[in-house]
């Protein structure tokens, strides 16, 4: 009587099992990508994962003899054990208990760890909802001048959410207001860029917004960390940044200027109201948004 007869569960897995395991892994991967990209992809990944998992279980059960029932010997308590050697390789009681203990332990462990792990990594896949921000009356932004506006992206979080934008009123184009609103996050690695001009000027306060009108138009913007330099449209002119400065979308409501969602910019052609802005989805600093390097970042998490 060999080892194999006693413990059918120790037999090598049938090749089908590996295929379904790979299917399960692929399904989970698609599910995670779908969580970032779109709901249909998420659902498709979930379906593939569940189907592969069930088929894996089925093939594992067949491989370990779970599926075929062998002839059941009546239990006998007298005399020597009946001919166990002759019985076909069915799942013995000890193998069944071993499998079910491991399986139950795995299920319980998964029930505990999977939600905790998902909770930990969830922020990487969730959209941050920042509502539009009121920067105050449009009359606070004189035409053709830059105003440094700092505001709290999430007032309930306090100063930690303070962000800075450089706002220039470009007047109106075809009756529509035009603003150039540049984020101060350096496109190299996210340090705060400064206007290259005298900043020792009085500032105004509107709710949580601090407005610093710059009497002298800056020569551009510069980053103190690694020396990146930008022109007044946010185009990179020197240093390590990989693209132009990010911008904020905006709208005017009740003669107040509201900041909307930020977006990334590869470069800007022209100036002011007539500038042509090459827009891209909001990306982290240091990521190329155009050219071959942008192929390194095919999927952006929802921001």
């Amino acid at each position: 009587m060999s080892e194999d007869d006693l413990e059918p569960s120790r037999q090598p897995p049938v090749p089908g099992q590996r295929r379904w395991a790979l299917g399960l892994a692929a399904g989970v991967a698609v599910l995670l990508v779908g969580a970032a990209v779109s709901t249909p992809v998420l659902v498709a990944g979930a379906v593939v994962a569940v189907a592969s998992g069930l088929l894996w279980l089925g093939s594992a059960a067949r491989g370990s003899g779970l599926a075929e029932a062998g002839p059941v010997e009546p239990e006998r308590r007298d005399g020597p054990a009946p001919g166990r050697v002759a019985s076909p390789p069915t799942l013995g009681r000890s193998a069944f208990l071993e499998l079910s203990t491991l399986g139950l332990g795995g299920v319980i462990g998964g029930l505990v760890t999977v939600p905790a792990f998902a909770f930990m990594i969830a922020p990487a896949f969730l959209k941050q909802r920042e509502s539009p921000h009121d920067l105050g009356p449009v009359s606070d932004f004189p035409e053709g001048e830059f105003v440094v506006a700092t505001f709290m992206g999430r007032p309930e979080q306090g100063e930690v959410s303070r962000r800075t934008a450089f706002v220039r009123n470009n007047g109106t184009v075809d009756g529509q207001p035009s603003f150039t609103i540049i984020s101060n996050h350096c496109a190299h690695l996210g340090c705060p860029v400064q206007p290259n001009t005298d900043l020792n000027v009085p500032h105004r306060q509107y709710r949580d917004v601090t407005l610093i009108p710059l009497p002298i138009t800056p020569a551009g913007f510069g980053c103190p960390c690694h020396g990146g330099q930008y022109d007044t449209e946010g185009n990179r002119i020197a240093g390590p940044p990989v693209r132009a400065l990010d911008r904020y979308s905006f709208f005017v409501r009740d003669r107040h200027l509201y900041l909307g969602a930020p977006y990334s910019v590869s470069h800007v052609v022209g100036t002011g109201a007539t500038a042509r802005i090459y827009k891209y989805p909001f990306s982290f600093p240091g990521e190329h948004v155009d050219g071959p390097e942008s192929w390194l970042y095919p999927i952006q998490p929802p921001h």
Partner: protein
Amino acid sequence: MAPRGSRYERIMYPIDWLEERSGLVGGIRYFLFRKVPGDTNWFQTLGSATLTAFLVQAVTGVVLAMYYKPDPKEAYPSIVHITNDVWAGWLVRGMHRWGASVFIILMFLHMGRVFLFGAYKYPRELNWIIGVLLLQLGLVEGFTGYLLPWDQTSYWATTVGININGTAPFIGPFLAQFLQGGTYINADTLSRFYSIHMLLVPGAIFALIGLHLYLVVRLGVTSPPWSRHPAGSGPVASPPAPPRTGLTSPAPRGGTAS
């Protein structure tokens, strides 16, 4: 049952009591007095030095956690409080702050010793891999701990560090968003880094150090490259140790020491 017998037996009674019920004393003796090559070198103490540096970080970190508050409004004032008000706070914080650099430097020196001695070769490859994991976790500790003072230097250095992570191909944007718990550094980022710094990563480091030491004991210490002993030779025969009682071979209870 009151201990009887010689004075030595009475003194050793608690240790013998523990040994009889747990086997721990024998295990510790086995660990401390195991055979190592006769020509081991001072450079081979770098691993113990690294372990000591880590334990200093663990102990001082536990004490600092009693005063530190991982909240954007409280973090910096609590650091000032530790440094200026708490008795010997400046010392404990200084030990943690400078000990962090000592820990990283010692890890690299230890790694260099293992490389130059060829101690990463068969059968110790797995221990090299565990060591590399420990090095990476140590660097994560340095990165996450740097944010905790919550001053301008740490804030902007962490901004740059997170965005460097963000430029990693394919997973970078997700990694950056995972690290700061959102699109920007926010109110949760500090406590997130604090939890990673004092719970998640130290737990993993403790577990991996346990594995690392287990493999060191199991596989033995390597001789230096200039060793005259042939590689793979068996243990050198040593004269039998004189018989003694107590510790690992307790005399029968109530009997007399020979």
